[in-house]
């Protein structure tokens, strides 16, 4: 059996790891060729190294599978949470719904978790309401003014001509109202709010975060300038970008919800109030925990107003 020198084995191992240049590889092949049985020996060593790598991978896989078992106890809870916070693809949402129908224990856990989640959401709203009241108290310095209510006195003595004019004005008013207040773009304007940008809750690598933040700010600038084409493009791009590594779970939800909602408004701004928009709106409406759930409900009401038809 041919033995290879340690120097040759060092080079052979480097070659196996892909660390040799083309020139170095040619030199090694030439040196192996000079030794009787050198090529066969090299093949056997490569075989050993590959097998050792396989063993390493298999052992690591066993460990990883053990680690995963500790997550199993919370697997369903995580699955439900992702569903409730609208973080699942359509196929996965359907899987959850199917399992609710078929698995009684899962359905019960789902129901409990949904109640808890709604409770947390309500508590958060309540806390915010209290905060608003406090701000309100701080702002009003005691000079409260009572609103004067003037009772309307109906005037019945109208001539037919005046009635017709009024009717005409009402119809014209409805058209004006529909155009000015309920057109797609008017609704996009009405519901759009510029979020505070420029800071994040997490800490860490600035470049990835800064790039994400910049795109986020650009998308909102486009909204403010009513450049809805660009806004839509940027929000869609952000929606498919891997969020920065240092984002906390809270950051992830904040940004994702903001993207979901503003993409809808950008679509409205583009006068695309058809199926695509409705689909996206339905996703938020199906998720009471979504940050923009209430706004989505109001928008749906506005979209359904009869004068938009």
């Amino acid at each position, binding site marked *: 059996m041919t033995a290879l020198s340690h120097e040759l084995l060092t080079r052979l191992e480097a070659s196996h790891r892909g660390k040799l240049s083309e020139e170095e590889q040619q030199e090694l092949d030439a040196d192996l060729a000079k030794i009787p049985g050198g090529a066969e020996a090299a093949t056997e060593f490569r075989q050993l190294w590959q097998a050792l790598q*396989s063993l390493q991978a298999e052992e*690591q896989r066993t*460990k990883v599978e053990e680690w995963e078992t500790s997550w199993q106890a919370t697997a369903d809870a995580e699955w439900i949470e992702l569903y409730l916070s609208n973080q699942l693809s359509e196929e996965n949402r359907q899987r959850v719904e199917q399992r609710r129908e078929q698995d009684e224990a899962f359905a019960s856990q789902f129901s409990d978790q949904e109640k808890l989640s709604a409770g947390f959401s309500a508590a958060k709203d309540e806390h915010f309401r209290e905060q608003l009241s406090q701000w309100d108290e701080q702002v009003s310095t005691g000079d409260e003014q009572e609103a004067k209510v003037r009772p309307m006195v109906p005037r019945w003595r109208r001539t037919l001509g005046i009635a017709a004019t009024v009717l005409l004005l009402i119809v014209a008013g409805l058209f004006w109202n529909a155009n000015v207040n309920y057109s797609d773009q008017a609704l996009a304007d009405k519901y759009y709010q510029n979020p505070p940008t420029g800071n994040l809750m997490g800490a860490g690598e600035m470049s*990835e975060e800064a790039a994400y933040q910049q795109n986020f700010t650009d998308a909102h600038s486009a909204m403010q300038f009513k450049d809805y084409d660009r806004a839509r493009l940027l929000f869609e791009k952000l929606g498919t970008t891997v969020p920065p*590594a240092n984002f906390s779970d809270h950051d992830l939800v904040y940004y994702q919800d903001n993207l979901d909602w503003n993409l809808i408004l950008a679509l409205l701004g583009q006068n695309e109030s058809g199926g695509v928009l409705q689909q996206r709106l339905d996703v938020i409406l199906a998720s009471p925990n979504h940050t923009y759930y209430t706004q989505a409900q109001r928008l749906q009401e506005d979209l359904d107003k009869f004068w938009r038809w």
Partner: protein
Amino acid sequence: MSKYARDEDRLRELALGGDTAWRAFYDDLRSPFRLFFLKHTSWSNDQVTSLYQDVMVVLHRKVTSGDLAAPLRSSLRTYLFGVGKMLYRKQGGTQNRWEEEIPEVAVPASVEDRIAEQERAAWVRDLLNRMDGKCREILEMVYLRGFSMEAVAEDLQLSGAGSARKRKFDCLQRMRKLINSAN
């Protein structure tokens, strides 16, 4: 200072091969990884979990072999997603627009063929079991746990990295003899 200094510190910790560091890394990245693939693909819970495990195995190999080392060009998380994207594609995942945002990361072909990998692993485990304790120990340290030669020398109280390397090659030659004796 590197843009990814914090990740590079973590990478150095992972390169030492300790289970505690890898376990913490597994737990930290599990939720974001799953969340991303459950949201942006049609893959089920089990498929995504299995994908994450495959990704961890690939990353472990890349880190312990020194293929992935500082300075980093992206965060570890982005790199992990890159491995995930490649495996997702190789395992038949449908093309998605989000893929453009994630870097391409080469994945060793051997990882894809589980059966062949298991056979090779069983074969070499048998060879290791037939070796004397000292050789088995050093080969496991180097090839399974990713120890550097310096770390092996320190652990086995050898005179230095050169001495450890010599012993490693002697043991590899003996292992090769076992292949031939078995044939």
